[in-house]
């Protein structure tokens, strides 16, 4: 195989298609959004070309600050819950027999095929007073009467974790399968109980993978806008919900774009900080 760097312009040929796709479907829409975020809203029509910071200025209010804070909190909570559930689960799965692994992975993949709407309404039924899981608890005598569990933060969190968990497991799975099983055996011969060996060997050895997965789930959860509306109260609405609201129902594209750009910037900053902290931790 040829190893040297491309010499002529034509050597870049194979890159043309992916580059084109990237420009058409990512760079142009994103640039448009950035541009629109500086436009002026035209109440009669859509928006008019301008260069004003009004949209960003309006954003700097306590209300939007709170919403942003809640969005970040929710996404981080979802990411942490997913990691806490998925790492031990995927570890056990990777040590199970081939058959068990296939059954579980197929099950998880089928959850991926469910749309956010279906997940939202399924959980809203499960959390309802009339047909929900509390009826089961009443039936086995754990509760005296059924209650509605939604709308609530717990309901939003549960559904979002349910939605993100398959992704988490599928991202962690290859790394855990590749992890040398003799590492934990060695830890056990050195005096660590299975649980201790999990926390002193498996988790630290997979630190980078876990960190990357955490960031992935965090970003994934930031974009969720249906589940908070279906299962939460207005105070559980995320920035994504407000962006949708502004863009689609209030027809205020410039303001929606400004919020989206701001969300991207905050996300990038957070991810950058996490990576920086990770690198520092490694050097220490």
């Amino acid at each position, binding site marked *: 195989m040829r190893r040297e760097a491309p010499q002529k312009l034509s050597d870049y040929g194979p890159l043309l298609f992916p580059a084109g796709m990237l420009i058409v479907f990512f760079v142009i829409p994103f640039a448009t959004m950035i541009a629109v975020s500086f436009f002026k809203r035209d109440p009669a029509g859509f928006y008019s070309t301008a260069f004003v910071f009004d949209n960003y200025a309006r954003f700097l209010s306590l209300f939007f600050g709170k919403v942003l804070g809640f969005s970040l909190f929710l996404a981080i909570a979802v990411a942490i819950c997913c990691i806490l559930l998925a790492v031990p689960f995927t570890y056990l799965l990777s040590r199970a027999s081939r058959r068990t692994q296939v059954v579980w992975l197929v099950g998880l993949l089928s959850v991926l095929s469910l749309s956010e709407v279906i997940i939202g309404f399924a959980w809203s039924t499960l959390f309802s007073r009339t047909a929900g899981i509390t009826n089961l608890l009443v039936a086995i005598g754990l509760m005296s009467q059924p209650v509605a569990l939604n709308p609530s933060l717990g309901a939003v969190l549960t559904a979002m974790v349910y939605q993100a968990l398959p992704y988490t497991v599928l991202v962690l799975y290859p790394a855990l399968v590749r992890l*040398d099983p*003799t*590492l934990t*055996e*060695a*830890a*056990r*011969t*050195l*005096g*660590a*109980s*299975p649980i*201790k*060996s999990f926390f*002193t*060997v498996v988790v*630290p*050895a997979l*630190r980078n993978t876990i960190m990357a997965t955490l960031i992935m789930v965090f970003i994934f959860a930031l974009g969720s806008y249906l589940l908070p509306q279906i299962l939460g109260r207005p105070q559980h609405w995320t920035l994504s919900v407000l962006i949708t609201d502004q863009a689609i129902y209030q027809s205020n594209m410039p303001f929606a774009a400004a919020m989206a750009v701001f969300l991207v910037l905050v996300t990038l900053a957070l991810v950058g900080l996490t990576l920086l902290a990770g690198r520092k931790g490694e050097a220490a």
Partner: protein
Amino acid sequence: MSGLALQNITKEFGTFTAVKNVSLTVPHGTFVCLLGPSGCGKTTLMRMIAGLDLPTGGAIKLDDADITRVPTHKRDLGMVFQSLALFPHLTVGENIAYSLRIRGVGKEDQKKRVDELLSMIHLSGYADRPVAKLSGGQRQRVAIARALAISPKLFLLDEPLSALDAKLREAMQVELRQLQQRLGITTIVVTHDQREAMTMADTVVVMNSGEIRQAAAPVEIYRRPADTFVADFIGMTNLIDFTADSTGRAHALGSPIEGLAVPGGLSRGVLSVRPEDVHLTAPGHGAMAGRVTFVRDLGGTIETFVEAGGKQIVAVSMPHARPDVTVGQDVGIKLSPDTCVVLKS
């Protein structure tokens, strides 16, 4: 009795029996090598001693306490894996200190012990290196130090040296043996290299298809193999069929062997004769007749291949006793009765 005792250990995987009814006692402080061809159950036996697998039958006792069902982490042992299994996220020092940290030993004491072990394995000053930056032999030694950090009751090594090149392997064999003698620790090593076993062991245990064929001192195994498998597996040997007449006189390759005592009642069997015990002489004079087919001069030793009675016999001699033969020459073969081991066929 202090030390390790295996009593009728059996391990079945489904319908396949990997280890069959193995009994062995390893007195405190001895060095045992488990030797055998690939797939004979050495690793399986070792894993049961470590508690990583449970036997399907039998008992394991350590210093008279039954540990058959004691979980691995409560057995106070040190084990070196074939893959070494050094923790990639820890430094050399942290790897060695792992078992101490798990047991809650103080930081100061940990450091002292790590320094002690590092100087024992000639790697002083390497404590802060990442394990990925070590050479094969260094990683090997770190794995050994890590296993020895708590001064375990039992030191287990599964093919610890197989990843090293021949020169380093020989050096490590000697080092390992000296270390074991200095520490006086009961040690079991799995290997399929018989030279390695002979170098290090007090007792060599030869296994085949899940069973122990012989357990004895290295020289004993070499000089007095218990059966044809052991004779053939350990070193080079000539396996020669013989018949005995009613007076107990043995005949092999068409000639009688004077002075060889065949146990009563045995009318046929196999003689195991080491190549260095095969002497080539001039033909006739009651010697077995053969013809030289090939001479291999290895510098340090000379191997002469002789065909006699339809069988290939190998004689090994030292350069100063070089037999004066050429290919195609007729020679006589002399076997002295005290070097012939009589085995059942």
